[in-house]
Each structure stands twice: as structure tokens, then as C-alpha cells.
């Protein structure tokens, strides 16, 4: 982890006092006790304006409405599809969540999405962790066909996306690969340079705060011959 990056941040473990002041507000992964703000999770402190938060270094994916995820069909019921999203929950895709009208008397649900199909889909509602809904009625949503799949620590996904999508946009543009980043840590990659892209994603996952990471990634990308970019498929930035 680069000295530069760590200069304004502290490594904290649960319970550590980050600061003691009523002028600041407890943000993500922190809690207030009396005048102090404490870390709730293992991670690095981050102060933005008056908000104090902790950037987690490890986490499981907790579904949040609006997130794009890569999910797999694991069951088909009479009124929709059950999708695996993460160890914490499955999600349900109902008939109203797909783009076309399905007359269940005339066609089987499996003819739309069958078991083991992969979907890039949008979390539409989280009532409780056992009732999570997704929708394909989202411009970015689609069925994913032949490609590579990798699992990334969900805590590192924001780093892979980068500030306002800067990192992933660079990777997509320079590699010519189609990439769908699931907030759940599952990433789908399609293209001739998929293997090289996986290597880059693994590098970012293992050294998210290394000095000059962006330059290093750019260099690796320049070393591969870019394919023509076919469309803006799966752009979540």
C-alpha cells in the first residue's frame, strides 16, 4: 500500500476511535458513541467534508437497490426465475421484470432464461435479505453468453470501477473486451484479450492502493493489441 495513499488514512479495526468531535458525522462503516466516531469494520479511514467513513478491506456483498450484478439462474418457478447473487441471498426475477410479454400458456419460462444462464441484471428492490428482486427492464441488463467469469472480493469492486468509472472505462477501451462488473463481485469478460484483462483485474484486486496503480494498468493495456470496440455493451460507469 503506497505511503502516499496511507498518509491521510489510518488502518482501523472494529472499535477503534477515528476521531472525537461533534463537528463530524459518522458515515459508512462507522458508529458514534458519545462524542467519538468509531470504526465498525476493518479498513482504512476516509474523511470527506464532515463525513467520516471506513473503506472496508474485505466484505461480502450485501444487495442494494440499484446495483448491477452478475447472477446465475438456479431455479425456474411458475411465476419467474430464482437467481444466485451471493452467498447471502438469492434474488427473484418475476415475469414483470423481463422486457417481453410472456404468455405462460404458450411458452415455457425456460425458453427465455434457462437453468445456468448468466444475467447481468439490476437489483430493483430489497425488502429483506430473503426477498431481493431484480429486473431486466434496465438499459444495461442483458443475458450473458460465452465469456470468462471471475470472482473478485466485493470490497475491491469500487477500485476496479475507479473514480466515476475511470479505471474500467480505460480497461474496456484499451482492451476492446466487453466487461460486465457485478457489484456482487462476479465479473464477466468477453473478447480476445480476456486473459490479459483478468490478469489486470487480479492485480487491482490484490494491490488496490498501490502507488501508480493506474499507470501500471495503462502500461499493461498498452502491451496488448486492442480489438475494435464493437459497442458500449455493459457499460456501468
Amino acid at each position: 500500500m503506497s505511503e502516499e495513499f496511507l498518509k491521510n488514512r489510518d488502518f482501523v479495526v472494529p472499535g477503534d476511535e477515528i476521531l472525537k468531535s461533534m463537528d463530524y458525522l459518522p458515515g459508512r462503516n462507522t458508529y458514534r458513541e458519545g462524542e467519538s466516531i468509531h470504526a465498525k469494520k476493518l479498513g482504512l479511514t476516509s474523511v470527506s467534508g464532515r463525513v467520516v467513513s471506513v473503506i472496508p478491506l474485505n466484505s461480502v456483498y450485501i444487495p442494494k437497490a440499484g446495483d448491477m450484478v452478475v447472477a446465475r439462474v438456479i431455479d425456474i418457478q411458475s411465476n419467474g426465475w430464482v437467481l444466485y447473487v451471493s452467498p447471502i441471498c438469492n434474488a427473484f426475477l418475476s415475469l414483470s421484470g423481463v422486457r417481453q410479454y410472456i404468455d405462460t400458456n404458450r411458452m415455457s419460462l425456460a425458453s427465455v432464461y434457462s437453468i445456468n444462464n448468466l444475467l447481468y441484471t439490476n437489483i430493483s428492490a430489497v425488502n429483506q435479505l430473503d426477498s431481493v428482486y431484480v429486473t431486466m427492464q434496465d438499459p444495461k441488463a442483458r443475458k450473458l453468453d460465452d465469456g470468462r467469469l471471475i470472482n473478485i472480493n466485493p470490497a475491491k469492486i469500487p477500485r476496479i470501477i475507479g473514480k466515476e468509472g475511470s479505471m474500467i472505462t480505460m480497461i474496456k477501451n484499451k482492451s476492446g473486451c466487453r466487461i460486465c462488473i457485478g457489484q456482487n463481485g462476479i465479473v464477466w469478460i468477453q473478447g480476445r484479450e480476456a486473459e490479459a484483462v483478468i490478469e489486470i483485474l487480479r492485480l487491482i484486486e490484490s494491490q488496490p492502493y498501490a502507488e501508480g496503480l493506474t499507470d501500471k494498468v495503462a502500461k499493461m493495456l498498452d502491451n496488448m493489441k486492442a480489438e475494435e470496440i464493437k459497442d458500449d455493451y455493459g457499460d456501468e460507469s
Partner: protein
Amino acid sequence: MIIDEGYIAALAAKGVRADKRQPFEYRKIEIQHSPFSKPEGSAIVKIGNSTVLAGIKLGVGVPFPDSPNEGVLIANAEFSPVASPEFEVGPPEEDAIELARIVDRGIRESHAIDMEKLCITAGEKVWMMNVDIHILNHDGNLIDASVLAATAALMNAKMPEYDGEKINYDVKKKKLPLKWKPVAVTFAKIGNAIIVDPTFEESKVLDAGLTVSTKDDGNICSIQKSGSAGFTREEIDMLLGKAVEMGKELREKLSHDASILKF
């Protein structure tokens, strides 16, 4: 986690593997001898990310009536839920029992231990040897790792003193009467491709598996075919040969001593 099953199967057909290994190449193998002081013998074995412990405990008991002058071997394996999100709390299920039986047969049928030397008084008192396998992290091919760990533990085991009445576990000196070092080599068939040392992901897509245990002289002492597809006669011939050859390489690893877990 979603496993890229189609990709692994497609790769196998091309003779390539996700971790860039050759079809007949093992992952990195590390062995730590005698990590623990309580068991009479112990070892930690790592094959890639699969980590397995073996421990040997010796006690004194009554021999079986049909072998009154031989010690007793009992092998047991536990798939602890620490090792995989798929393992659950509870009594051993069929995979754990199968694993324990392969370890048992590897030691028993190879006559790795001279069981007659474990007799104290014929028909009355013999050494009871418990070989326990404990899985810490499951990334496929638990069988080869377990047999290797059991054999390593047999190699470094020391017998406690016994005065005819009480065992003194504070004094351990004599080595076990170890004659052979059995090792197991496991192959997986994915489609028509055959590989050795399958990872967890590869074992999720395998159609058939074959485990062959061999001893130092190249003799085969146990075979276990698994999975729901079959092997051709030619494949079996080829794999038996490979198992003998690769078994030699595994056996050489047993003399190394790495530091895997630090206490």
C-alpha cells in the same frame, strides 16, 4: 461465487488448464512434518490451496480375534466446515468416509506398517493406531493430500513408552515399523480429456475420477474409480502407468519439510 464451468470444460478439451498447468502436472506441494506435539505423528500437507492435517495417536487395546498378534489400524477423516462453504456440521458424509477408507487401504494393503511389530502380548494387548485426517481448506484433490499427510505422519511418528500397564506420553522414542510409503495419485476425466490433481473447480465439472495408490516398489495397493462416466481400457492402462511414475515424484516430496502454519 459462480464457477466458470463451461470455460473449464472447454479448456480441458484443448489440453489447457485455467491455472496454466500441463494436464499431468501437480500444483505446488508442501509438507510440514511434526507441526504438533500432542499426536505421536503429524503433518500438514498443502497441494495448491488444499490444506490437510494428519495426526497419529497410539493407544493400547485388545486385538481382533482373527489377527491376535497384529496391531489395529483405524483411519478416520473429517471434512470440517472450516474448509469449505459446502461442508456442514455433522457426522462424516459419504465423501469423508470414502476418503478415510482410501487412506486406510493405502496403509493397510501396502503393508506400510509391520502390524505384527505392534503386538504387545498376542491375543491380549496390541497397539491401536488411529490415523485422523482433518481438512482445513478444500481446493480439490483432498485424497492425494490426505494420503500424503498420513504417510508423512507415519514417517515422523514416535511411539510412547509402555510399561505393561500405563502409557507414558511424555516419553516418545521409537519410530513406527514403517516399511513402505504409500502415496495416491488422482486423475480426473473431463469430456475426453484427462488431467491429474484436479482443483475444486475442475472437480465440479469432472465426469469421472481415478485414484491409484502405489508403494515404493511400484506396486499398486489401492484403486478407486469415481464419477458417473467411464474410462476406456486404454485410458486405464495409461493412467496406471502414470500413477506409478508420478507416485515416485510425490514420494520424493516426503523428505522435504516446509513451514506452512506458524505457531
